[in-house]
C-alpha cells in the first residue's frame, strides 16, 4: 500500500543563549514537504520524498560600553 503525503510547517521561533553573551535566534519561516510512504503487511512504514526548509538565523552579541564626557559649564 502506498500513501502520498504533502505537509506544511508554519512559522516557529526558538533561541539559544550562550555563556559568552552571544545568542542565536532562529525563526523557521516555513517548511514544505512531499513524501511517498510504503506500508508493509505488518504495518512497517518506509517514507522518502522532498523537503524545503526556509529559516532566518539571527546571531547577536550583547556588550557594555562605558563612555565619559566632560564639558565646562
Amino acid at each position, binding site marked *: 500500500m502506498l500513501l502520498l503525503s504533502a505537509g506544511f510547517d508554519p512559522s516557529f521561533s526558538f533561541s539559544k543563549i550562550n555563556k559568552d553573551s552571544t545568542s542565536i535566534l532562529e525563526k523557521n519561516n516555513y*517548511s514544505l514537504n512531499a513524501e511517498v510512504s510504503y506500508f508493509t503487511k505488518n504495518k512497517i512504514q518506509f517514507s522518502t520524498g522532498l*523537503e524545503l526548509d526556509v529559516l*532566518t538565523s539571527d546571531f547577536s552579541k550583547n556588550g557594555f560600553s562605558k563612555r565619559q564626557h*566632560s564639558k565646562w559649564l
Partner: protein
Amino acid sequence: MVSQKDSIQNGYDSKVIKTTGTTVFESTNNIWIPGESISTTVTFPKYIVSTQIISAHQIYNVTSFGLPVYVGYSYKVGNHLYFEESIGAIFSYQQAKQKSSNFSLPDPTIRTMGVKIAIRPQIRYQFNCFGVSLSSNMGYDLLPALNWNGITRSRYYPYIRVGVHFMLK
C-alpha cells in the same frame, strides 16, 4: 571678611542618576577664594559617565532542500484514525544568504551539505483515499548550515506539521 566656614560654599555637589541601562554622574564645585574682596567662583567640569548596552546582530537567511528518509510503525486506533511513529534522517543541500552584517562580529563558515535526525509522531485521519494529519516534527541539526567559530551550535527544532494524504491501494 569671609570666614573659613563660608569660604567654601557648595564645595561638592554631586548626584547620581540611574536610569535603565545608563548611569550618569555629575559634579559641580563652586569655591569662594578667601581673602579676596571680590568673590570668585570656580566651576569644575561636569563629568558624565554613561554605560550603554550595545547589541550587534548578524542575520542570515538559510534555505535547505532536503531528502528525508523515515522508517516507522502504524497503529490503527479507530475506524479511520491511525497513529504513526517515524524516525529518520534528512540529508539536505543548504544555502545561506547574508541579510545584515556587523563588522564587530565574526563571519560564520557556511556548510552546504547538512544532516538532521528527526522523530515524527503523527495522527492521521483517513477516509477512503483521502486523509489529513497533524504531526510534530522534532529534530536535531547534526550538520547545520551556519557555524560561528568557538560557539556550540546545537540546534533542536520542534515543528508542528499539518498534512494531506492520498492513498493508492
